[in-house]
């Protein structure tokens, strides 16, 4: 089997998670690369969580929330947008491949957009290859 990247996708419960479900209901196809973590709002996701995902071995991280104006919590996504902008610029600055960390707006009715975003992000990360820079080699810890 060819290498398939593993991407952690933080999806807000109200829009993007529903959009991902709709992609399934519509039987759209996208690469089996993403591992979805459901969060209440894109603003729940802190930069440290994104970095932790990369550190744990993610080849990429996708954070997706509601479109501006649609946030279930009114403005959470707009605060998140600022945070993510700064994080993305900082990661770019230190030479971490900027394509590895992606942010999106996907509404509950945009199953097709979700599928396209996942496909596109997966392609980009495939082109970069595995995350070797920011991955901490972990041992699976057993119960002692």
């Amino acid at each position, binding site marked *: 089997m060819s290498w398939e990247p593993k991407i952690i996708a933080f999806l807000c419960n109200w829009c993007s998670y529903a959009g991902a479900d709709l992609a399934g209901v519509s039987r759209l196809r996208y690469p089996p690369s993403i591992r979805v973590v459901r969060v209440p709002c894109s603003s729940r996701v802190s930069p440290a969580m994104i970095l*932790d995902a990369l550190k744990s071995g993610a080849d990429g991280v996708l954070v997706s929330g509601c479109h501006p104006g649609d946030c279930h919590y009114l403005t959470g996504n*707009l605060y998140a947008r600022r945070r993510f902008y*700064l994080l993305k610029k900082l990661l770019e600055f*230190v*030479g971490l491949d900027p394509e590895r960390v992606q942010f*999106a707006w996907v509404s509950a009715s945009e199953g097709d957009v979700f599928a396209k975003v996942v496909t596109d992000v997966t392609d980009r990360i495939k082109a970069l290859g595995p995350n070797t820079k*920011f991955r*901490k080699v972990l041992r699976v810890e057993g119960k002692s």
Partner: protein
Amino acid sequence: MSTLTEKIREAAQKVLAEGLAEVVLGYTHGSLPYRNRVTVVNTPEEISRLIWPSIGVLNPANVLHKLKGKKVALISPGCVSRAVVVLCQEGQVKRGEVYLLGVPCPGMLDPSKVRALGKKILRLEDDFKEKVLVVTSEGEKIVGREELLRQNCLECRHPTPLVYDQLLEGEARKPSPSPYQKVEEIEAREVSARWQWFQEAVVSRCIRCYACRNACPLCYCPTCFADDSRPQWVGKTRDPVDTALYHLVRAYHLAGRCVDCGSCEAACPMDIPLRLLTKKLEKEALSAFSFESGLDPEAPLLLTTFREEDPEDFMITQELKALGKI
């Protein structure tokens, strides 16, 4: 004796005499000519200890919390005033409890640049304008001031404080015309070269002593994320990924807050260019959100506000839309 030092002493005298403050927090000579330090003056008799340091010192705002309950007069060049403003915005300091003695800042010299001038530095004479006379064990040298200034002073956008209770007379450096030159130099490199720089200049040098955090007047969390164990964001070893994560999150935690006082770099025993990370975020905050930290105690912080028109072209969906793919 420089006139700025005289002015500071005079003003401090008056502040204590008039009861505008109980103590004065400022700078004094250190044990070596190129090592000044922060001091607290409690009585008028001690005022003669106060100086305007020619050579850079840590940010005195960092010790404000130790003086809680006392009204403090603070010798404040631009960056110190800005640090206090951020602390006020974040409720750590009450504006009324600090008397800001504003200093139009001529910039401070970089101790490591001075040290490099000779084996033993005996004396310095700084005209605070153009030249510095350096007396070393090898002889005397006159050096252009610009050559010896700290990088953060060279890149300073606000040498004169905007927020103060009293502003001393004097001539400040002009605001830097190219505050982000060093940042731009890194930005211009290729991704791999940037990563290499980050690894070599920051990650591999770091011994995780956290002096940068401890020196920072704006790092005041009771438990720093770097020390937290639930969850443990940063491993306790010197794994390069943990170190990188520490530096990225440290810089991010200062986004829209850092006042570029240079304390982190001054404190770093490994000469890590820590400011470049915070400066990068400062640059982004200014260009993307027209935001500068520490200029207005009433203004919201960078991350507690937003504008509808904040940039979003960095988002994959907007990019795909622009490409006509979605």
